[in-house]
């Protein structure tokens, strides 16, 4: 075959080809630059540290009362307890209401994860604040407090066997934790509340606000551990008028007590649920104004709702009212029950609300406990206390689970189950510290399901 290029031309061409190839390869990286403006890769400034702090508040708002499907813990816990009944078609809610939550319930992992994210995001924000924006210290205190709040609520809501895992400092890898008891969770909460106090510096009013919040969270953790006197001592400084609230707006999230109950009709306010539940409707208590609607979202369940909250109303997560109730409980649990203080503290709260007459001594210790927990339930309805309280009735006051939780025939078919807390989601099996049995769907990371 006749060649058509001279040898010289071929050599030149080969050289140029090699050079061209090298240039083309060098140009690769430029061609592959695909910068996505949607993401932010670093947070290394004072304003970014503050923004990280604000992000932790977003998590906090979400897990308390700002998220549905999966639901926030204030609502989900109330559903397992006797505050709410499921007027919904979603089995994820119906089974929780029936106390038969499976570890595969797809609503289970998210609120737990959000609380854990509050903890780990809080740690990241603390590091950033200390590096780039250490003043005021109240910002750092708040991060410890939201962490403590999440840890305490996890202990109140989930079974014994809660793992607490951590992220590496660069936030890209995981240091897995082992399951611990709920008591360990309460200890962590108390410790983090103490850390908040240690960092609580800045403008006086904000320092006071954080100090009161810290006192309440610590007291709540101590109460959960049965350390009643210490709990009362912690909240002694908190004025009855004090509130710390999770706040909402149209641009952030709706208050889910409104959204799920009033707007969506998926949650229905109960009345003596499962025999043991409190009469939240029929009591006609001014603390929980209720109204009757027609049919809930599922098209079958009679519908009732409370007008306590509008769409963007704040939800109180800690208050001076609670402080007095803690003091009342401490008085009741004194070696010699101080019934007078017990009544006085509860009546101090009641004096703040029109239409509530002072309480008198019901006469027996058991009745006093009932009355106290009833007061707690009515004062703090829908704010993430009731499930923890029912568990405390079992754990600290010796009540049988079937005497405090809804029981008997479940109104949507079948019977109530035996849950007194939430299991950890099956997703936690991805924690290598959890014993694996991949063939069994019902496996839980729980050490036990007791209260």
């Amino acid at each position, binding site marked *: *075959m006749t*060649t*058509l*290029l001279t040898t010289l031309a*071929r050599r030149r*061409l080969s050289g*140029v*080809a090699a050079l*061209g190839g090298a240039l083309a390869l060098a140009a*690769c990286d430029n*061609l*592959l*630059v*695909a*910068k996505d*403006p*949607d*993401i*932010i*890769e*670093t947070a290394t400034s004072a304003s*970014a540290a503050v*923004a990280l*702090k*604000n992000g932790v*508040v*977003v998590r906090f*708002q979400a897990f308390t009362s700002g998220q549905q499907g999966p639901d926030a813990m204030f609502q989900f816990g109330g559903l397992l307890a006797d505050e709410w009944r499921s007027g919904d*078609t979603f*089995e994820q809610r119906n089974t929780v209401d029936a106390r038969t939550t499976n570890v*595969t319930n797809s609503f289970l992992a*998210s609120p*737990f994860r959000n609380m*854990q994210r509050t903890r*780990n*995001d809080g740690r990241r924000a603390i590091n950033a604040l200390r590096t780039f924006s250490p003043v005021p210290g109240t910002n750092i205190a708040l991060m410890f407090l939201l962490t403590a709040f999440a840890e305490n609520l996890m202990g109140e809501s989930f079974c014994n066997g809660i793992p*607490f*895992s951590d992220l590496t400092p660069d936030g890209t890898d*995981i240091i897995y934790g082992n399951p611990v008891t709920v008591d360990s969770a309460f200890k962590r909460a108390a410790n983090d509340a103490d850390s908040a106090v240690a960092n609580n510096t800045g403008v006086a009013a904000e320092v006071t606000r954080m100090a009161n919040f810290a006192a309440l969270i610590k007291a709540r953790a101590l109460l959960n551990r049965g350390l009643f006197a210490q709990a009362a001592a912690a909240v002694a400084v908190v004025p009855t008028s004090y509130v710390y609230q999770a*706040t909402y*707006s149209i641009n*952030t999230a709706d208050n889910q007590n409104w959204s799920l109950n009033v707007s*969506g009709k998926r949650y229905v306010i109960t009345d003596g649920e499962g025999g043991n539940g409190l009469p939240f409707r029929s009591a006609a208590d001014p603390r929980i104004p209720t109204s009757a*609607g*027609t*049919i809930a*979202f599922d*098209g*079958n369940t009679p519908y009732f709702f409370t007008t306590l909250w509008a769409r963007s109303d704040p939800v109180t997560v800690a208050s001076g009212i609670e402080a007095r109730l803690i003091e009342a409980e401490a008085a009741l649990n004194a070696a010699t029950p101080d019934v007078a203080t017990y009544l006085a503290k509860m009546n101090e709260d009641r004096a703040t609300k029109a239409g509530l007459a002072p309480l008198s001594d019901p006469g027996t210790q058991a009745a006093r406990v009932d009355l106290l927990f009833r007061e707690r339930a009515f004062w703090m309805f829908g704010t993430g206390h009731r499930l923890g309280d029912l568990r405390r009735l079992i754990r600290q006051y010796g009540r049988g689970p079937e005497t405090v939780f809804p029981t008997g025939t479940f109104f949507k*078919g*079948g*019977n109530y189950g035996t849950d007194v807390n939430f299991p*950890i989601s*099956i*997703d*936690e*099996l*991805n*924690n290598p510290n959890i014993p694996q049995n991949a*063939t069994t769907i019902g496996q839980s990371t729980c050490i036990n399901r007791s209260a």
Partner: protein
Amino acid sequence: MTIPTPRNLIHRPLLALGLLLGMAGSVAAQGILSGRVTDKAAGNPLVGARVFVLGTSLTASTNADGRYRITGVPGGEHQLRASQIGYASITRPITATDQGATTVDFALVLTPYSLDEVVVTATGDQAKREIGNAVSTVEVADLVRNTPVANMNDLLVAKAPGVSVLPGNLTGSGARVRIRGASSLSLSNNPIYVVDGIRVNSDVNSSAIGIGGTNPSRVNDLNPEDIESIDIVKGPSASTLYGTDAANGVIVIKTKKGRAGKPVWNAWMEAGAVTDRNTYPTNYRGWTAGATVANTTQCLLSGVVAHTCVLDSVSSFNPWADNQSSPLHTGARQSYGLQVSGGTDAIRYYVSGDWEDEVGVLHMPDIFQQRLLALRNIGQVSYAQQNPNGLRKTNVRANLAVNLSEKADVQVNTGFVTSTQRLPQTDNNTTGLGSNLYGGPGFKHNIVNPPGAPASFVRDNFGYQRYTPDEFFSETVSQDINRTISSGTFNYRPTHWLAFRAVGGVDFISRDDGDLCRRDECTYFGTSKLGFRTDARATFWDYTGDINSTASYHLSNELSAKTIVGAQYVKEKFSRNSAQASDLTPGGVTVNSGANLAADETTTLTATLGFFAEQSLGYKDRLFFTAAVRSDKNSAFGLNFQRVYYPKASISYVLSDEPFFPKSSVLTSFRLRGAYGASGRQPGPNDATAFLAPATANLDGVDTPGLLPAALGNKGLKPERTAEVELGFDAALFRSRVNVEFTYYKKTSRDALVSRIIAPSAGTVASRLENIGKTLNEGVEASINTSIVDSKQFAWELTLSGSYNKNQIVALGGVPLAPGVTNWSREGYPISAWWTRPYTYQDKNGDGIIQFSSNPALNEIFINSNDSLVYNGPVLPPAEFTAYNTIDLFKKKIRIQGLVDAKVGGYTEFDTERIRCQSRLNCRGEIDPTAPLSVQAAAVAVRQAPSSSQYGYIYKTDFIRLRELSVTYSFPDRWARMFGASRASLTASGRNLGILTKYPGIDPETGYFGSTGAALTNDFQTAPPPSYFTFRFNVSF
């Protein structure tokens, strides 16, 4: 024939690379070959036949007179081949002379099968005999003319073995396509699409607005009328050179091109009906004391056995079948188009334009329209609200091919589509049709206070559960598309042995998604009654640049070689701005009219740069060996992973061309083929990166900017890698009247990207992609095409095809992927297979009612006690079969075509019935004491037993469907000439005409879906497929 020196052997591949970089030299002219290609039987010229000199880059197409001319032919001996689709090719030895002219004529014979058919590959056109893979080709032009093809879904369904297609069931909705099973657990299992050499967007569920059901697919923007053929490249053994993302297969589309000759005009008119011929489930109600039409008090069988209620009577109502309540009507379809093609030897053109309009089967019932007329004080409900599902589309295309010289040609292809679509609220949607109609009570006039409405607001729902069509069809979801796919191909053949090809193009889409609920018009759900508006405007840019150069040469008289080197660059950019408003002012329809405003912006970018080299060897034009490698770098790979290499090798051996092969009229030709290749799937653009995302925090009542850790990232992230081995044979029997193709394949995906769930205690994101999986798809495909009878009066051609695929997760890296309620991806089983807890039942007391009781003595339902899940079956049908008949009658004046297909071995959940029993409380199994015990047991197991099981709703989806039937009458030529036409025909056709199945749901192909996952069907309050009946008039001038 001249043989190059060893030095040339080294330089020619290098020169191919040099030419790739634009540095080729020029050469002098040599000899000329010319001649004519005709149909041997009829003697008429064949237009567009390809004539090429084997082992060189020299090629030409015939003009309107069937003539061709090839210049630059070096003197010496050559093999010259002429081929045309539908004809047996002929190869002739010729002797060319330098500076001289040689004339060679060809008379081709019709044949249904030829190994010399040309298919489109990543590096250009190639004869089938040279390729070691099975490539299925769909000749589209004939299908569109003579069968009920409304969109790309219809073109692909049941057309090729191994290609599973679930057509969309709403007008304008997209199809889900799986080729040789599903390989990826967490990424898309959809194939990629290439049109005229460039990558195009093929997103499924392409919309910013959720409707609860299947959204549009960008594949359906493509116009079947403009497509010449579709080659389906089924797996990595063939798709290697298409690069990362081609592991799921490649749909290669070639649009129509002009042919030299006088202008040929084709026009058509199509009109028809879209109907819903499905049978829907009936709703039940158990009446008892205290029950009224305004409350939900009823007595279920569980109450009967518990003696908590007395079942007075059972009523039933099927709103789908009720004249007043039914939202179904007969939709309409019409289409009109005109095409012209022609040109000269130098310039050829194809220009087309068409318009189509389709209105789906959903319609606001008159009774609800009357309600709106009174409520809104209007004379007529708007057309869009009356007919919430419709599509109107206009296509134009201009393809131009220019021979710049005898060595260079250029093709420019441009298509433009503009469409507007309306989508209904349906399927998995609280405020949609499905949940409200499947969930309705077992009687017609239910008085309802809908959720969200004032307690005083009650109305007759006519059998709908909560919301009614006057409300949810008043929400108008629209999508406007303006899309252009433009590409250019430049071919340059500086010498007889060197060819250069450059392809470049862009696919641009402007997509405007709108969602409008005027104030006071939609449901009471949430704040919808206050009105809302979403205006989401997105643009998609897909750029492709592809260059390669081919050196063809002979290593000896019997050994030919071809070296191809090339590079490809693909960049995809998506950006969207969305504005939302709620609480609209009365009469307001824009975002501006909302009291609450919000906006968001999103952008995604990916880029891939790949280089490839391919070396082919051909021995005596009967044994071909090809080896190639492609290397890709992608913007989505992790920082610790830079470049991926995909090798391929194939062999094709036309055994019947060997002298020793016995010549027989029984076995006309026989080819063995085998291939190995690898390809990949790239992760998402940000999956490798740890990043933060902006968020708004409300601090004590004040909205404030915040930052959220949003992704863990994965520095080592790399693409999934799928390697495939394919072995098969092609045989033509009885003078090619029977043609058999058989293929075995084994496709293994390593480093499979799994969205690994992160333990919630880690306090970070829910999952991240990790390369930890390994999946396997192994199967066989076979097709038999036979011309049973072929006479002037009567001809019958039958094509049978079938495929079987075994899908399996081989490894998950020890990660216990959490099971869902009914689906689980587990090692040793198919991806996302069905897993439930089985149960048994026994009517112990003989009362005809299955009951659950916590008392073991009374309990009659027994659910697997140890809480273990049991494998039920795969989501994808492993086996598929099709039978395609073409019958010509009366000298081919009448053509009947029919397609029957079957899918076997798949499972799905009759989830519509499950939710009816579990929470709507209107299913027969829990209300009617005469219901079969199995039906009762399913309801009891899912609703009453504490360890609830959905086992009773998992069913096989086996079916046989009469998919297409059409009859075409070709008018006598003299009739056509009366109108100045050369040809005219009328086709009557139907789609989805009948089905045989034991599946108890509405239809086993019912489905809505997301863009990933393995499953084809999801029967959850979902629209089933409608039927089409159309008439089409074709005329050519």
